[in-house]
């Protein structure tokens, strides 16, 4: 690769809930686009890519490479490099925070704890087991139950004084529990904080399986939720770095890796 040459690349992260795209010029992010997937992977992928291209003032033919990760990455209509989300998130976090050696990713379907090398490669990785209990999907479900906007969940949680104890692993049963607690008159903030505690406990249990390194970051949709971030920090007794836009971490990683391949 000739580093002097201007090289445009795109990275896509087509998740079950959100589709994300970034356009990069060498190692600089030019533009990004995020939208709900809504069950149509190829449509969502096309839309975010075109949207991001438009914002960057580029066209598809300007792209030297496209990298994609996520559940829906198989449905892209044009040639691209498929990369696993784990590698993309490692690389993406490495892009934002080169000193970080542990990444906690809280995604829609699963959570992961990844130790990364200084090059942003995967040194160790633990993924939550075959149950959606440790994923951020549960946050959306509960937000809906409580009629709280997803983005208000974190700030509300921080106001809690007496977090409710959540018990079940199942995301759907957690919904039932939340409904019961509301009915019993427990405050929303306590319920949300309880949920954050439960999620954080599962995530920190995973994190204990690989040695947490000095500098840690949190990424994925869950990183947008300050309540969850604080709860995880409490459990692992470490400060977590959060990038300005945790949603696009994976997409950035995808773009960076695709360039190399």
């Amino acid at each position, binding site marked *: 690769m000739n580093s002097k040459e201007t090289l445009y690349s795109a990275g896509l992260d087509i998740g079950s809930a959100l589709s994300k795209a970034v356009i990069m010029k060498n190692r600089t992010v030019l533009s990004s686009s995020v939208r709900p997937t809504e069950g149509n992977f190829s449509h969502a992928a096309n839309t975010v890519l075109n949207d991001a291209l438009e914002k960057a003032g580029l066209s598809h033919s300007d792209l030297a490479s496209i990298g994609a990760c996520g559940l829906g990455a198989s449905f892209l209509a044009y040639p691209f490099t498929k990369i*696993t989300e784990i590698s993309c998130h490692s690389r993406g976090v490495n892009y934002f925070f080169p000193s970080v050696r542990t990444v906690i990713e809280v995604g829609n379907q699963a959570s992961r704890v990844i130790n990364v*090398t200084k090059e942003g*490669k*995967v040194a160790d990785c633990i993924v939550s087991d*075959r149950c959606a209990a440790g994923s951020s999907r549960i946050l959306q479900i509960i937000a809906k139950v409580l009629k709280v906007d997803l983005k208000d969940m974190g700030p509300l949680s921080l106001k809690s004084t007496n977090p409710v104890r959540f018990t079940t692993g199942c995301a759907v049963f957690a919904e039932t529990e939340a409904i019961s607690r509301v009915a019993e008159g427990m405050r929303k903030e306590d319920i949300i904080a309880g949920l954050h505690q439960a999620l954080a406990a599962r995530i920190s249990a995973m994190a204990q399986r690989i040695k947490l390194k000095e500098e840690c970051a949190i990424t994925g949709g869950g990183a947008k939720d300050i309540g969850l971030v604080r709860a995880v920090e409490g459990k692992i007794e470490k400060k977590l770095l959060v990038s300005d836009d945790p949603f696009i971490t994976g997409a950035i990683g995808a773009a960076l890796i695709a360039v190399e391949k």
Partner: protein
Amino acid sequence: MEAERKKKKRTSAKTLQTAREAGYFGKKMLQNALKAREEGRPTAWSMVTWWEGELIAKAMGVELVFPENWGAFCASVRAAEPHLDRSHGEGFPSTLCGYARNCLGYARNMADNNLEVPPDAPGGGLARPTFLLSSGAACDARYKWFQALGRYLEVPVWTLELPHTGVKEYFLPGNKEHNIRFIVSELKEYVAFLENLLGKKLDWDRLSEIVDQTFKTLRIAYEVDLLRKAVPSPMVAQDFWSIMIPHLYLPDDPEAYEFYKRVYDEVKYKVDNKIAAIPNEKYRMMFSELPPWHTLGFFDEIAERYGIALVIESWSYHAIPPIPEEELEGVTDPLELIARLTYRMWTGYNETALEYGVDPGFFMSAYLKWAKEYRADGLFCHPLMSCRPATYTLLHTGNVLMDKFKVPSVVIDGDIVDLRVFNEEEAFSKVEAFVETMDHYREVRKKEGLPW
């Protein structure tokens, strides 16, 4: 491209010519039992007892079938689910062993069919048994399951004992010999049980022949394992899962011995000529425990995509390192030979365990020895939802491998029977990331002066 891949047949491609012949032995077992049943000769359902009980039954002229093996077969042809549903309906918890639930559901179907093999039974079905041979080795399922069959089959059950010694306790003065004496006296009672049940005496000469043949077969099977240390790997787990059937179930069968000679020759040829089992071997992994029988093609795929060779696997299905000659000096009693053989299976890695100060000797310590000898880059852990006890020590094994040798492990959930548990997409993504992890630890091992 993804969709195309999905359409491909998902059984694995064997890299050995001989491995393709091994299916014969599985069919032979099932058919022999059905034939015996037809001719009024005794048959039994048996656990894998690691030769402790099978050899004696065979010397008594009993045709054995193995519901564990048949469970894997049902899963591989995707015929287990109706049995699982049946067992669930009978009130057995769905957390129990998948092989057991498959068998319990089948037994219920048999009971509904006057205890004869139901017409649509997978692979011709398990012939109605004269007795059940259960085992206290490895897990509780293997005697509780056969006991539970009493609900459908009113036939005698014999439970074999196998001491489960802790590593430290194994080395207490005299304990090993006490354990072997115990197995021998248990085997005597087992012989008496069989003689009484079948109304005939054990032919001791025949038993000695069978034991000799078994020792021979296991020896050569072990030598095949030794060949597999070669780089690049001449044979991979996809082959082993086929060839394990003869030595595990039919080691006394001269055909099995002849088969292994051919396997040995083929592997030896590949080693001598540096012929790799998979093209571009980049990573050497150990595998634990049983594979997802219904999705074996996955392993060919990761070989193709990432150059991963599964070089050694699943401790409990391997022939054990031979018993030291001095231990066998002057031992002629076939029961004692059997006792020493099976006990060796469960304690053969206790020296390794002692060396590294770990427990238990079985299920995990073999991997410690193998990691070095097979130059392993990683351990592929496949925890089985329905063979839980085999899984209990997996994380521990992974922790110790990392601790002692900086060999990382990857955990990919799955199951031997329940295909719903294994998510291929997720598995690929984990393996892909794990490749980076293996790279990383190669560097770490190099820095720490480890030899591979």
